[in-house]
């Protein structure tokens, strides 16, 4: 898949009803968003590559794997794609379950086109944000991996708010040595300030 496609968001429509599928595609494409449609969850899973930008529009009730099942399945596989759920008739427990699993919206058929398109837009935006977060995380993690065990130790203590002296005492080395480790950590982590380093570590640990 080309880099252009990779960056351009796609709406994945999964619905077992062909008419519904085609009409959704027709409607969503009217706002210039690319649509790929699938007749079942399995179909989708077979073709979807994680990390692609866009969102998922799911019919709740489908033979085989239902919409909610698919949602859970993706979450379990750590695939974070925003989901918009469409249902024939909303029932509250199902909506709650969908939202808890991280659905962006829960729309009842027949729906106002604005409502759907709006939800899709939000979903795509959410996805973008998530994706950027995700790439930052990756970078931080990569940097963390470049640290030596000693540097990692020092970094942990630094982020815990310990002074150089304290750290030197704890590790049984001179404060000067700690000073040098710290400078290397800052450099490796590309952190401009201590606050930035702390934010990075928190972001990574919080995400984990």
């Amino acid at each position, binding site marked *: 898949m080309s880099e252009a496609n990779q960056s351009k968001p796609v709406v994945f429509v999964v619905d*077992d*009803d062909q*008419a*519904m599928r*085609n*009409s*959704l595609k*027709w*409607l969503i*494409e*009217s*706002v*210039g968003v690319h649509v790929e449609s699938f007749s079942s969850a399995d179909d989708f899973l077979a073709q979807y590559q994680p990390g692609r930008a866009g969102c998922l529009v799911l019919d709740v*009730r*489908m*033979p*085989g794997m*239902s919409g909610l099942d698919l949602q859970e399945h993706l979450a379990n596989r750590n695939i974070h794609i925003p989901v918009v759920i469409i249902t*024939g*008739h909303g029932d509250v427990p199902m909506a709650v379950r969908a939202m808890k699993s991280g659905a962006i919206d829960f729309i009842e*058929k*027949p*729906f106002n*086109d604005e409502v759907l398109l709006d939800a899709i837009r939000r979903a795509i935006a959410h996805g973008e944000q998530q994706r950027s977060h995700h790439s930052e995380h990756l970078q931080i993690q990569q940097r963390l991996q470049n640290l030596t065990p000693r540097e990692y130790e020092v970094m942990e203590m630094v982020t815990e708010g310990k002074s150089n002296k304290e750290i030197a005492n704890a590790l049984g080395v001179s404060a000067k040595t700690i000073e040098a480790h710290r400078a290397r950590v800052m450099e490796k982590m590309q952190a401009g300030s201590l606050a930035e380093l702390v934010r990075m570590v928190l972001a990574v640990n919080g995400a984990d």
Partner: protein
Amino acid sequence: MLRGIPLPALALAFGVLTGLALWLVVDRLQTRALSHIFDQALESQLDQQARESLIRFDEYRRSFAHLARLVATHRRMADYLDPIIWGRRSSDTLQYDRDHTPPWLPDDLTWQGGISPAYFSLVDPAGQIRELYSSRGAALPVGLIGEVNGQLVAANRRSFVTLFNDRPWLIVTEPTEDNARTPMGSIVILSPIDDAFLSASQQFVKSSNNVVAILDPDAQRILASSSPVSVVAGSRLAALRRDYMVTAQSFFDYDGSDMNLLFATLLPRASFERTGQQVLDLERRQRLIGAAVIVSAFVLLFVFMSSRISRLLRRVSQLSRRALDVPNSGPLQHGNQLLILEEWIRDFVQLVMRAREEMRRQHETELLETEKLRVAIMDASLDAIVTVDERGGILDFNPTAQETFDYRHEEAIGRSFSELVVAPKSRDAFERLLYLSLAGADQGGALQRAELQAVARDGRVFPVELSIKPVFLEEQLVFTLYLRDIAERKVREAEIRSLAAFPSESPIPVLRINGRGVITYANQPSAALLKHWGCRPLQTLPVNWRNRVEAVLQTGSTKEFEVQTDDGIYSLLLAPVAELGYVNVYARDITSERLAEEEAKRRQNELVHVTRVSNMGEMATGIAHELNQPLSAIVNYANGCARRLRLDIGGKDELLEALGQISDQAGRAGEIIKRLRGMVSRRQPVRELVDLNVLARETCSMISHELKRHELAIERRLSEDELWVRVDSVQIEQVLINLLRNALDAMIEVPAAERRLVIESGVQPDGMVYVCVQDNGSGISSRNMEHLFDAFFSTKESGMGMGLAISQTIINNHHGKIRADSWPGKGSVFTIELPPNIDSAVSAAS
């Protein structure tokens, strides 16, 4: 075999054979007896002769002793033996011979009596032989003297026989004296006992046949014999016994001799046997003559007898020919007359016996058959047969009579017929009938018949038909009465009469139609049918009914038809009476039944409808969802179009296609609504030609929403061929929906991923078209299986219990079947079978 030989010849043969046998036996016996007699005579003669021979021999021997004494005591001897002269003589033996006789021997020694000793010797007292005289000139065998001396010294014997060189010698010795009586030795005479000696000893016997011999018993050999020609010395005794009778005797008066010698007398056998043979020959000749005479007399006697028997036979055969008409006895003249006679007598007796037996059997069979016939007729007769004598007393009472009147045979015999069984009021008539029968019989007239009242044992009076036949036996007159109980017949006649009135009294139409379709009978209630057919009795039925009547007659089995007249609906039962060639028609007014049925059907339809509608209620959300689909699609398309138009994007073709989609979806929504209306609307059941697969597919889509709710898809295994059936589609769909929903309910407990629902269709081996719904749900317990199709039976909390009952009603109305198979815990299969519409299948295919 003997039969072919004439009697005289037989007698001759018999006589000759018997004579021969007798002759042989007598001959043998006589020969033996004769030889025995001869032997005895011979033996005694032999003994006698032997004794005599021995005596003679002995005397001869003694004469030697006498001679010795004579010589010894002679004066010459005494003179010669002068002791001075003789005593001094040298020891050489003086030899004398024939020419030189010794001086001591008397000159005139007579040799009369044949006594001529071979040697004389003088022996001195020392035992030395001084002088020897050999009368025959032969030298004394060497050694003999020594032997003799030994003997003489050993025993003082005067005379003895000794054996020297296998030859017997007689030695005689006598002492000698001189004149002074002084013993001067002795004189010894030695003589060989040879043939000459022996013959000399027997010289006075005339019979020359006898031979005497000296026998050595140890060697069983002859040492010397009187006849050396016939009995050679040295020959063995066993060889001699063939030709001679031998008697051996020991010598007497030889005591002291150690010589074991016997004196044998031999008599030649030949002479005796010749004599015996001569006697026997004579005897035989005489016997032969006697036998011939007896046999001849015997044969003559038989010739005479056989001629007499032959004559007798001829007469007897003539008799048998005439008396018994037996053509045998052809070869009577030849052969053994006695045997033939015996045979003939045997045959004759048999013939007579057989003839007698035959006659007796014939007679008996005739009697028996007549009796059997009579008894059979009497026993088997359906009529009561009674024989009475001229006074009316019962003689015989057959089983039917016993049964009819309930009297046993022995009870009836001897009673008066009239009093026993004729009702009092009919007795006169009976007497008259008897009389009339007699009169009629005189004229050779017919049987007299009449109807009378009879009375049984229990007093029941009933009509009988009676006919009388008088029978004139040799000694008496009897009547045979034939009676028939006609009570039943009368009842039957009455019954038939009343039966004939039966159909006419029937309130339902009854008709009879013959093979050509002509109405031969129709009762009053048939009017409506006749009016419908437009015909009257004795007219022909309309053509379609005529055909039906014909068909029923041909098949021979009853058939039912329905006919709707202005007055109502009738069911006509056509019952063929094949042997008479007509059909009885029994009609039944079934108007009210039909009305009731229709009412029931209408109610059922209503029920079906109500159930359906209630189902619809349950399905409402599903239906709503289904409607939602096309509606949502329409909205999406429409909005999509509007946006494109607003933004002026999208090509015209694109928009047109979207509009087309809108139209399609609207159509789809319309379809759903139409079907919904079909399900809900109350209407008459119809029959239309549909493909069962299409129905199955439509049904699946109808409940697709519910399927989604249960998160499963139906596995469709529908047949590739079209399954044409003539059904009410809505009702069949109703059944299928019901089955599918039941299946879904049954699978609630099963995890969604494992749920499996299959709908299958096809053709069964028996030709029925089927569709079945299979689930892997909880299944049905065998207890519930029994009530599965009962109304108001439900295992669900919300169920009305009408689903399967209604389904069964619907399928039954379609002449199909619905059945359930279930494996508790594993699932169930519900199968609907429907009759295929073959014609339409063909037409649809073409």
